[in-house]
Every structure is written in structure tokens, then in C-alpha cells.
């Protein structure tokens, strides 16, 4: 199989490392060669972060370049817009609708663009954009946004439910498992547009 590319973007500290770890384990258990590339250090302090997940028969480069991603998974809608050019024109977006003002917007030096979901759709992209923060709260913690997103993303893969559940079990602390299972379920069933 030709290599498939996923990029996970968000604001440093939102939990993208756990999401990429879980995806990596899932594709490995499905028998693929897998590479995951992460960002640590300075940019994790509230900066824009991107994580790459690649799987296929044989994966070489650990990173995804512009115009190469099959999936863009995003924790925040401005970040979806920022990394849009990494997506293939027929790529699929799964994005949280949450807005987090970056410092230039907070200080008034820049404006947060409006109606991003509509503008992205107008460019011909397929975008599935549930309010993951609201669903995470419903599951019991605003921190579960990453698992809500994974639940939503699972919708686009032909991978058995038990594989996702097993990966959750192996990667989240037991005391938060139930919460995360609920978050996954809510994400999965959030109506695709």
C-alpha cells in the first residue's frame, strides 16, 4: 500500500502527542510500517505544533510536506487554516471548532479570521468540524478533546472497533479510561457533515 499521511495540528499543550501515539500503535497493530514525528521543547509552550503520522508498506521520511497529507486532524480552527496547504486537495479534515486566540490577537496586533470552516469548505476541502470541546466536557473533562477527535477520525478508517478500544486501554491511565471511552464514543457519533 502507498504511504498514507496524517498531520495532527494544534496549540502546544493540547494533547497531540497522545493522539499520535495512539494512532501509531493502531497502524502498527494493523501490520503497517509506521513513522510518527513529534515536536518537543519551546513550541510546546502554547505555540503552533504539528505532529506527523505516516503508515504504509514501507515508510521512509518521518515528516509530511506541503500538499502531501491525506488527513488533517486539528485541535483548533485557526491551526486548521494555518496548516491547510499541507493537505492534498482531496484530503479530509477533522477539526475541532474551538478558537484559542494567539498572542498577536490578544495584544491587538492581528485579527482572528472569521468563518474559517465556511472558507475552507469553499476551497473545495472536505471538512468535518464538530465542537469537540463541548463533547469532551460532556464526557467529563475538557482535556479529552484529543480522544473526541480520535473518535471522530476513526469514522474514516476501516479498522475494527476493538483495535481502537485496545489502543485506548494501552495508552491512557486506567483511572481515566472510562472518561476517554466516553469521549471516543461521543466523537465517533458526532454527525458528519
Amino acid at each position: 500500500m502507498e504511504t498514507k499521511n496524517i498531520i495532527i495540528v494544534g496549540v502546544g499543550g493540547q494533547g497531540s502527542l497522545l493522539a499520535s501515539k495512539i494512532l501509531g500503535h493502531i497502524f502498527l497493530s494493523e501490520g503497517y510500517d509506521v513513522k510518527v514525528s513529534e515536536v518537543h521543547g519551546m513550541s510546546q509552550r502554547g505555540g503552533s505544533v504539528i505532529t506527523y503520522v505516516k503508515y504504509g508498506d514501507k515508510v521512509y521520511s518521518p515528516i509530511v510536506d506541503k500538499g502531501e497529507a491525506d488527513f488533517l486532524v486539528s485541535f483548533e480552527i485557526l491551526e486548521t487554516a494555518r496548516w491547510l496547504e499541507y493537505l492534498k486537495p482531496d484530503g479530509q479534515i477533522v477539526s475541532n471548532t474551538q478558537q484559542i486566540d494567539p498572542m498577536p490577537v490578544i495584544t491587538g496586533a492581528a485579527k482572528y479570521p472569521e468563518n474559517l470552516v465556511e472558507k475552507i469548505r469553499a476551497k473545495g476541502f472536505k471538512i468535518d468540524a464538530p465542537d469537540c470541546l463541548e463533547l469532551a466536557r460532556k464526557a467529563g473533562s475538557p482535556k479529552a478533546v484529543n480522544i473526541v477527535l480520535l473518535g471522530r477520525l476513526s469514522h474514516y478508517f476501516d479498522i475494527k472497533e476493538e483495535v481502537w478500544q485496545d489502543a485506548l486501554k494501552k495508552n491512557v491511565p486506567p483511572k481515566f479510561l472510562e472518561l476517554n471511552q466516553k469521549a471516543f464514543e461521543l466523537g465517533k457519533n458526532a454527525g458528519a457533515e
Partner: protein
Amino acid sequence: MKELMLGNKALARGLYEAGVCFVSSYPGTPSTEITEEIVKYDEIYCEWAPNEKVAMESAFGASLAGRRAFCGQKHVGLNVAADPLFTMSYTGVNAGLVVVVADDAGMHSSQNEQDSRYYARAAKVPMLEPSDSAEAYEFAKLAYEISEQFDTPVIIKMCTRVAHSQSVVETGERTEHKKDYEKNIAKYVMMPGNAKKRHPVVEERTKNLKKYSEETPINKIEFTTDEIGIITASTCCQYVKEVFGDSASVLKLGMTYPLPEQMIKNFAAKVKKLYVVEELDDVIESYVKSLGIAVEGKNILPVIDEFSQNLIAKAFGKPVPSGISLEDEIPARPPVMCAGCPHRGLFYSLKKNKCIVLGDIGCYTLGAVPPLSTIEMTLCMGASIGATHGFNKMLGAESEGKTVAVIGDSTFMHSGMTGLANVAYNQSNSTVIILDNSITGMTGHQQNPTTGYNIKGDPAGKINLEALCKAMGINRVRTVDPYNLKECDAAIKEELSAPEPSVIISRRPCALLKHVKHKPPLKVDTEKCIGCKSCMKIGCPAISMDGKKARVDSTQCVGCEVCSQLCPKKAFVSTGGEQA
């Protein structure tokens, strides 16, 4: 067992299986996780040292004692540890000794993007460069064989994309390799008479290592065509394979010092056109040219920033995909101090007092970005104090009343103490602020000699910063709570006007530490808020303007109340709900 592993974790696994007994490191992105993974193996003694030089010397001592030893650091860390490294090349080792240096091309989290490959040549120490996790694992084990066979320290050079990428690794079992310590003054006491005899040994060893480099299977030719030949190493191997597949022959170098002269000549002779693809400087390319071989590389590829498959494809005139973006201007999202960061209040006070702030390496370097824009210099670990001393000595009263050094607790332990010794000894009228957040923050929460805990989180020796500064000869030492703006303001004013050296310890644990208890998030009473934006001056990511009124993001706010102290209308009120 097949497992998906971070490059750093795979390297740690290799160290474990190689029978390593001793690990001493100082954290630094992208090298930190090697040591954090090692600590999980009970068979290995593992510690955070105060700095890389101490770590390197400690690892040397462990090797001398007959136990395989390891020391890991980022590229700039090796500058600190270069002193022992260069002479360890002369003494050689007893049990195997391996050093990791992790470069950060692209400067994801660094102050420069120096190319550490020069160190191998300068110190005459062999260097291995893995290109993925499986090689990081394999090379770690091989490095100990080379170290003991050739009586030399070995450097493994990682880079961000190998250190922080996960790929598949098949692991094995640990083997033990212990030696006895034997007194050998001629080998281990590097005074001139002995060192003169050791230098020829080093040169002879390099000759033997050159032969090894020709024969080792980690330097290999994958010959597929005589049209194009590419010599490459590290993460660039992966990009080259992705771009060219079988349409270029590849000489993949796992050992990049010493380089295999004959193998390169043979490869060059077989291909019509020869290229070197390497990140940062033209280290391999210069060597190939020195052999009189026509080669291209840096004439089409940059010496700046990290590479990617598209960058290489473009350089070779191949088509690359292009993406589609929106017409909207997308505002940048630079890193910021977290909500509740204890550094924020202190920096606000420094800004208010119009201080000249000479900074250091850590999260608090973010005091240089808007709206605080307070730090005016950041160079390297510990430089804040040395630079403040020199600055004040030259400008005297003009600067002494407004210039401060700011340095974190871990950075102060790393190399701030010697700077303070100079302030105390040569008596510059300097004020040093130690930002004690009780952890090494930027690299992801590592313990240090001031926290009272070791790398395992067990109780350990604890250095008392106040007592230390006093013992060094600083008479004026005081502690403030950076959440209390009035207290910070008073301390800064008083210490800057005092006619002698002084230290202010700004103490409050990092807001991200799990054991730190937070108050409930605040909210804005929109009846009281007059939209004056006073609270916006501190650059808290949890506060934004919602129309003409301030708004608090309850998912970020930790109730530190620094903003409340700036509000003229007392519009910030506690939500009193459950803890954030």
C-alpha cells in the same frame, strides 16, 4: 518484540542491552528522553547532573571504574562538555564510553543550529549517525564494541527528526560487560609528559578506525544505477530514499568520522554524477572534494534549516506537490508563557521599572516576546550573569540602577554560579534575579540540585539558594513571590538602588507541575470591566477581549490573580467552582 519507539527511547533500549551501568546527563531538547527512558531500567544507575561537563566527567569516572557509561546532551551541551571530551580522546576508556549529541537543525528549541560533526574530527573521536529508531538502537550497541575495541569514547550524533520520530524497533536482551579498574598513570594522568606519548596513540587509532570505517556494514552502497550517486547520512537518508527510490544509487554513511576514503572513491568511480545530501554544513562534501573528486551538494542545497523530501526534490529539479491555502492572513502563534506562569508577574514588574534585562536559557526567554518584550539579551546557559557583570563594569552608575540578570534555578546550577562568583569577587554592582520555579521547565520538568528530588523522584540532596548566594559573598539576598506584584516591585527598586551586589530569588513552582494546587479560575464581572485593557499588558493567554470587555478562558486560567492586581475596577472575580 516489534515496537514503535521514539528514536531517543530506542537509543536508551540499545544502551540497556549493551550492558550500560552508568548514565549521567543534563536535559536539553532534543536529547532529554534518552535519559528519561534509561531511568526506567533498574539495572542502570541514572542521574541528572548539574551540567554537561559534570555529566561527561562522571561518565568518564564510571568507565574508568570498569563499567559501561553514557552521557547525553544537545548540541550546545557538548560545547560545555567539550573540555573533558577532547582529553578523554587521549586517555581512552576502560569500559566502553558513549556520548550522544543531539543536533537541532531548524532550531525547534535551540539558540543556534551548530553542526556537531566538527567535534568528532576536532576531538579525533569516532562518530555514528543513525537515520531512524532501529539504527539508534543498533548503533548504541555497536558504539560500545567500537569504544572498547579501539579504546576511545564514541559519539552518536542524533538530530531532531531521528530523536523525536517513532519508528519500528525489534529489541533483544541485555548482556553484562564489566571490567576491573587498573591503575595506569601513563594512560590516565594527562600531564604534558604523558599526553605527548598519548597523542601518537590517538593518531594511530584514527588510522585503524579509518580501516574499520571501510569495512563496517553500517557504511553501505546501495547500487541501482550509474546515472546518479548520492552520499548521505542521518535523517537525510530517509528523504533521499523517499524522493529517489531506486532511481539513484546511495552511499549511506552510518559512521561519519572517520569517513571511508576508499569506499567513497569506489562509489564515485561507478556513477556519472555524484552528490552529497547533508543537513547544515558541507562536512562530508568538503572531505569528498579533498579527495579530488568532483561532487555537488551545497551549490544546490542550503546550509540553513532542516531538510524535507520536498526541499530535496526541488533542489534536484523534480516536481513537488503544492497545497492550497486561504486568502486570509493567518496570525502567527508564537510560544507564550503559560497561564499562571510564575515568571509573568516578575517580568511585568521589570517592564514597569524600565529595567534592562539580560536573560538566559529557559521558558523565561519568552519574557522577550510581546507584550512583555522585556529581555534584551539571551546567549547561552549562564550568560545572563557574566554579561550583566561586564555591562555594569563598563557603564557604571548609568546601568547599575536599572540592569538585572534573570536566570532560572536549573540554569543557575548549570553555569550561573560561576558568573555570580565573579560578581562577588570582582564586585560589580549587579542585581541577579533567580527565577526559582522548582524544576527544569522548558525541557519538560526535570529535577535539579535545588528541588530536593533526584531523577527517580526520590528525596535527594537539596541546595539552598539563599545560603549558597550568601556563602559566595552576596550580602543582599531576598526572596519574593512573583504572584505578588507589589512585593516584586519593591524588591526590584530596593535592590537596584543598593550600592552593592544583590540577589533576588523569585520563588513559585511552575504552574504545570502536577502537585501544584491552583485556585478556581477567575471570570470578568462585565458590569465592572471598563475595557481599559490594563490586564492585557501581562500577555496572559487566558485573557482576551470580547468586544469592549475582558474575557477569561476558564479552561486555561489557574486563578493566579496577577491580572486582578492590575485591574483598577476589581472586575476579576473568582468562579469559586471546582479546581481548574
